[in-house]
């Protein structure tokens, strides 16, 4: 069914159709609408989820951990400072192997305070042991959130699915929605392994490890993250077979014979595709790789997809403040290290704090690549200089 939805509406609709046991959340711009719309579903009895409006994001994630530990399918939503306030609990959620699903809306981190899109919030949380999926548009946000439930529960890792703040969260777009019954059947029933509320098997959750056990438990989580890759692929494929929209680790757009390419996440990829089309019409072999799965990081597959391209620009909508480029750049660059012929690589930091990224800026990146202007490791796109 073709509908017009904002990214936030799309995510809220997915949550309605998933009808989780528990949602615990605290509002924050630009993710507020997701729980706002969802609490409307609760108030109208459209879902019979237990919704708890806690007093902070820290408590939101804490309550999610409690509820998930109890054995309930649990979801939440946040953005930016909210995710930052959850940070401590993000690690605990993954360490305790809680399959919590988080609808995230990307927004810049303070300071200065800013409500608009960049990826500094989720990139800051990239090593918390959460699976991370970055979506290009409302459609993908909707589809991915539905898949996320299965991915989390099969890998026993928490997952965040994110959209670009305002650009996607508040932009209305055409998208296809599934029938309620289709979603219900796809997500199935959650069967927790060791629920806290199993009174016949009293368990202890969250014991302290000393030097003799911590490493082993971390090793398990590392392995779970490795396994998650296969699970993401499998569920993306199953979704595609059932509903016609296929999802993998990344999307290759006219990359096959590309001589110049950019790697980018989120909504900017859509804008970049328009530029790729323009350049192709002019006979320039431009291509694009849109990375969707950032955690676990599909380094081998990325290396395969990007091998043979002589010149690559990696676009980062956040900076690591490490003086050597953004998080996507450093990881992609590392992934390509073992290639026999390494490409020229350059990093573009763009769009911080919601700065518009338009066609001309993306054209300029391809132009830089085409003219071998790759001497600088990191360049800043769209900042006044």
């Amino acid at each position, binding site marked *: 069914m*073709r*509908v*017009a939805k904002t990214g936030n509406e799309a995510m809220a609709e997915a949550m309605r159709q998933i009808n989780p046991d528990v949602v615990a959340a605290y509002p924050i711009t*630009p993710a507020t609408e997701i729980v706002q719309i969802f609490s409307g579903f609760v108030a109208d009895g459209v879902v019979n989820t237990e919704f708890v409006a806690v007093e902070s994001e820290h408590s939101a994630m804490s309550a999610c951990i409690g509820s998930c530990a109890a054995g309930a399918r649990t979801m939440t939503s946040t953005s930016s400072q909210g995710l930052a306030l959850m940070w401590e609990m993000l690690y605990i959620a993954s360490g305790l192997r809680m399959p919590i699903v988080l609808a995230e809306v990307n927004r810049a981190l303070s300071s200065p305070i800013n*409500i*608009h899109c960049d990826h500094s919030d989720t990139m800051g949380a990239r090593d918390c042991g959460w699976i991370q999926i970055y979506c*290009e*548009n409302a459609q993908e946000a909707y589809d991915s959130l539905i898949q996320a439930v299965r991915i989390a529960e099969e890998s026993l890792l928490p997952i965040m699915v994110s959209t*670009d703040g*305002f*650009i*996607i969260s*508040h*932009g*209305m*777009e*055409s998208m296809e929605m599934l029938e309620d019954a289709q979603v219900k059947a796809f997500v199935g029933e959650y069967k927790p392994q060791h629920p806290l509320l199993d009174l016949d098997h009293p368990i202890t959750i969250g014991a302290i490890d000393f030097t003799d056990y911590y490493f082993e438990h971390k090793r398990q989580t590392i392995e779970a993250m490795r396994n998650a890759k296969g699970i993401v692929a499998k569920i993306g494929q199953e979704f595609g077979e059932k509903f016609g929209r296929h999802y993998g680790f990344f999307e290759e757009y006219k990359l096959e014979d590309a001589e110049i390419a950019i790697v980018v996440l989120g*909504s*900017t*990829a*859509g*804008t970049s*595709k*328009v530029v790729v*089309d323009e350049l192709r019409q002019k006979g320039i072999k431009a291509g694009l790789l849109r990375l969707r799965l950032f955690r676990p990081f599909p380094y081998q597959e990325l290396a395969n997809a990007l091998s043979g391209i002589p010149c690559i620009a990696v676009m980062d909508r956040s900076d690591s403040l490490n003086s050597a480029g953004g998080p996507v750049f450093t990881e992609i660059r590392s992934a390509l290290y073992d290639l026999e012929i390494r490409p020229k690589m350059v990093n573009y930091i763009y769009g911080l704090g919601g700065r*518009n*990224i*338009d*066609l001309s800026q993306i054209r300029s990146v391809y132009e830089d690549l085409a003219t071998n202007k790759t001497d600088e490791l990191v360049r800043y796109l769209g900042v006044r200089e």
Partner: protein
Amino acid sequence: MGKLFEIRWHGRGGQGAKTASILFADAAIGEGKYIQAFPEYGPERMGAPVQAFNRLSDEPITLHCGVDSPDVVVVLDPSLMETIDVTQGLKQSGVLLINTNQEPKVMKDRLSNFGGKLWTVDASTISKEELGQEIPNTPMLGALIKATNLLDFEGMLEDTRKKLTKKFKSKPEVIDGNINSIKRAYQEVKGE
């Protein structure tokens, strides 16, 4: 991607520029078009000048940047003309539609640098007469279709009626008022 139309709406906070863009998108969806509707977000509250945007195409739209050179500009509040340049970036072949009781010629004279087609309609008065309150964004939809031919008018009217019927089951006067205001604006809008 095929031909892409871009629309920019000018209004004041609380006046419904965002709602107008959503109404338009909703109507376009009914015709099987691909759409986008998005407002410009800032800390503005009631009264401040605000903008909202639409994109419309027969094919999926992947573009996610701001709208810099729209094909159409719609001005919901004529008083905005005094303070901002509503024609900024508007294509020379573009369409400018203004909610005002002035004739298009008068407005065109004031905008000497704009070479495209200019339309005016008194949507405020229409909405006051048909809906009992000043909500110009609904009638502006009718005027916009007349001015641009982007959507099929009868189809849009039918679609709007269906949606309103769903929402205002117990208030037939709201449904009729809205439909009449759209119709009147469609008929009364004048181009120059």
